């Protein structure tokens, strides 16, 4: 194994640069180092101006997503050695997001989209806490569990060609989280979410490329969530013609205790 590797890092400081450029840094190649360790090495020892986000370094906080050799990756979960003895590893900010500086992208738009799909449990007129928990069997939990695993890392947005073309597209993670609540037997909000989801900027924007699911580090399968919802939405749309209003959003069975 070579003992050095070169990182080619996208640099951009709005106060100084008109456009991004690349800068190369040679760093030690250690078998236990992830890409993030190399960035920290540069920041600590070589160039304190290198700018990126990180926190947990255990693949759960979702802050360290970047493009590594063209692929969206969590840099704390990507070993340098997986690029073998390649001459260089290219590190860039996540694609399709506005760049604030170097490897840091703007997240505000994602949060607006997230809020739009109402990702919280909607269940008006809940009984008092003293009535105990809502019942939910392990099977009912399994129905939505996978979609609840999203760490909001936005790698799927950087992988999605639709996001690249249409900035209004709600996007994979937010749609998966909406479906997470729709499928939760304690939730009664699917009707409230319908207008945002069954919309050209919602599920109908998705052309089923499936890249989101491929890059997701947490196996959330947003593409699956969207496909699933397309079916429900199509059925709901049909039902809205044949059933009186109010029926189409009949809540799923909810058990109290």
């Amino acid at each position: 194994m070579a003992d050095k590797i070169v990182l080619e890092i996208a640099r951009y400081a709005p106060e100084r640069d008109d456009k991004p450029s690349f800068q190369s840094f040679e760093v030690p190649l250690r078998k236990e180092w992830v890409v993030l360790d190399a960035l920290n090495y540069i920041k600590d020892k070589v160039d304190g101006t290198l700018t990126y986000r990180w926190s947990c370094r255990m693949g759960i906080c979702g802050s360290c997503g970047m493009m590594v050799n063209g692929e969206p990756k969590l840099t704390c979960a990507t070993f340098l050695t997986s690029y073998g003895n390649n001459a260089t590893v290219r590190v860039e900010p996540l694609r399709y997001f506005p760049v604030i500086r170097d490897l840091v992208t703007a997240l505000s738009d994602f949060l607006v989209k997230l809020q739009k799909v109402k990702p919280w449990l909607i269940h008006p007129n809940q009984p008092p806490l003293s009535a105990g928990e809502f019942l939910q069997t392990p099977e009912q939990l399994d129905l939505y569990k996978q979609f609840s695993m999203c760490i909001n890392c936005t790698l799927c947005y950087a992988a999605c060609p639709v996001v690249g073309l249409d900035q209004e597209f709600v996007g994979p993670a937010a749609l998966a989280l909406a479906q997470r609540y729709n499928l939760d037997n304690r939730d009664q909000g699917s009707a409230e979410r319908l207008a945002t989801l069954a919309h050209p900027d919602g599920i109908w924007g998705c052309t089923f490329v499936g890249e989101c699911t491929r890059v997701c580090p947490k196996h959330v399968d947003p593409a699956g969530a969207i496909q699933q919802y397309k079916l429900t939405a199509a059925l709901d749309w049909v039902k809205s013609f044949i059933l009186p209003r109010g029926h189409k959003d009949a809540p799923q069975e909810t058990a109290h205790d």
Partner: protein
Amino acid sequence: MEIRSHDILLVGGGGAGLRAAIAAAEVNPKLSVAVVSKVYPMRSHTVSAEGGAAGVAKPDDSLDEHAYDTISGGDWMCDQDAVEAFVKEAPLELLQLERWGCPWNREPDGHIAVRAFGGMTNKRTWFAADKTGFHMLHTLFQTTLKYQPITRYDEYFVTKLLVDDGRVQGVVAIEIMSGKIQAITAKAVILCTGGCGRVFPFTTNANIKNGDGMALAQRAGAPLKDMEFVQYHPTGLPFTGILITEAARAEGGYMLNKDGYRYLQDYDLGKPQPTPVLRSMELGPRDRLSQAFVKEDQKGRTIPTEYGPVVHLDLRHLGEKLINAKLPFVRELCVKYQNIDPVTELIPVRPVVHYMMGGVSTDINGATPMAGLYAAGEVACVSINGANRLGSNSLPECLVFGARAGHAAAEFAASQKAPNGSVWTQATNEVLRLEQQYLHKTSGRERIATLREEMQKTIEAGAGIYREEASLKQARQKIQELQERFENVGLDDHGRTFNTELISALELGFMLDVAQSIIECALYRAESRGAHQRTDFPKRDDQKFLAHSLVRRSSDGSLSVDYLPVKITHWPPGERKYGEGSHKASKQTKVS
């Protein structure tokens, strides 16, 4: 300078901060509530909590037993009135989270499932697989999105508390994206900034856990409490320090030394059984397990590695099915970061700095001695954790005392006038300080990373699992020198936009203050109790030290320590007993 005003300001958007924000918003929807956080709230380190959250849930359990486990686990340093409130409200808070959608694991009939945890007499730990903190934080965050009155300041870094007339009236914060420095005033400020594991070299804590809130409060004049009590978790992965949750042992994992021997049986923790026994062996408390590791190492029975000595955690006998169902994240972390599969291989582990029992001194409602200042979560010391926190008590602590602080601050704010004009001057001075000391200074010679590493090595050597007077004094001296060198710190980055180097420098300043407080308290506590073990004073001394340390900083930077009696309600100090049958004590020792 731009000035924004709110009624209540939360500093921190982790479990405690978000719970407090919702509580304040629910008390009075007319209040304007704001959350300031240096990272987007869902990035807060609550996200990494794995094992679970304790709250009595089943008929075979009782509040008294949860209280006794907590108090004996804390080596009688807990305030018992706070513990009683805690155990009573914890189940309600966990239930409330269920109502907000938290995907708790379930029994086949749909009721909440609970698991065993270290130091707990009964199964009472609620869990969402082994990503409990992740699910709790995202549930809370997503729930806050529906509350209109909650304003968020995402990626704003608080550098100072504004104090006038003995009352905290707001903060100065840097908007990281633009570099703009601004004052945000409020009638009450609640610190929920989490712990300070990064003061140490090897920790489970994220890069953002730098004791900011502790230093902010102490600089503003509030005392810190019990800072000498630092929890080492017995099972961290070498090199990264990534935590392997205690749930791995609760599900039946074994701790083995280099000979494959379950060495905990040699340390008054009971006899080995094939399946887990509550409060025994691998399910003993964390302080005792981490201390056993050091003893085992001294006997030459650990395994040397590049990253220091390790022992093994053995999960192989649990089988792939159970590991996948109950410990999927443990498997994922081992495979991804250690390149081993716990289904077929032993996991190398060593003790790792994990949690801060001490913090900003508060009463049972999260109020500090300073008017207008509240604290909750890991930054605070209420205190329910005493000399050693039990695993799975911290997440519910964030909820219970987050909610209490939110309520109390909302009530306080209702009776307060708008902040005094004099805080503007303070805010302007703070802007000048930041510019002169960091942004405009080009003469600084010291590198942040160098000072940080030296600090971390110093505190580990002087105030690690075992301490003594000489090593503590040496560490005190060295940190003082580092404080002086820090005056001469120099940045490469003088830009405004997203200047993370400036943030790192400010965090280092906070950590140095916290390190000093830890060492100072450790030096004066001439006894051994819970996580604070003095080789020169190996016994607990209730005569002199059944009391909380309070450490204050005066304006010249010097520290002073005094003591506050521990509140005892029903459980007089006794001996901590672990091993088979030890749980019976929980029913016998209560006096009314």
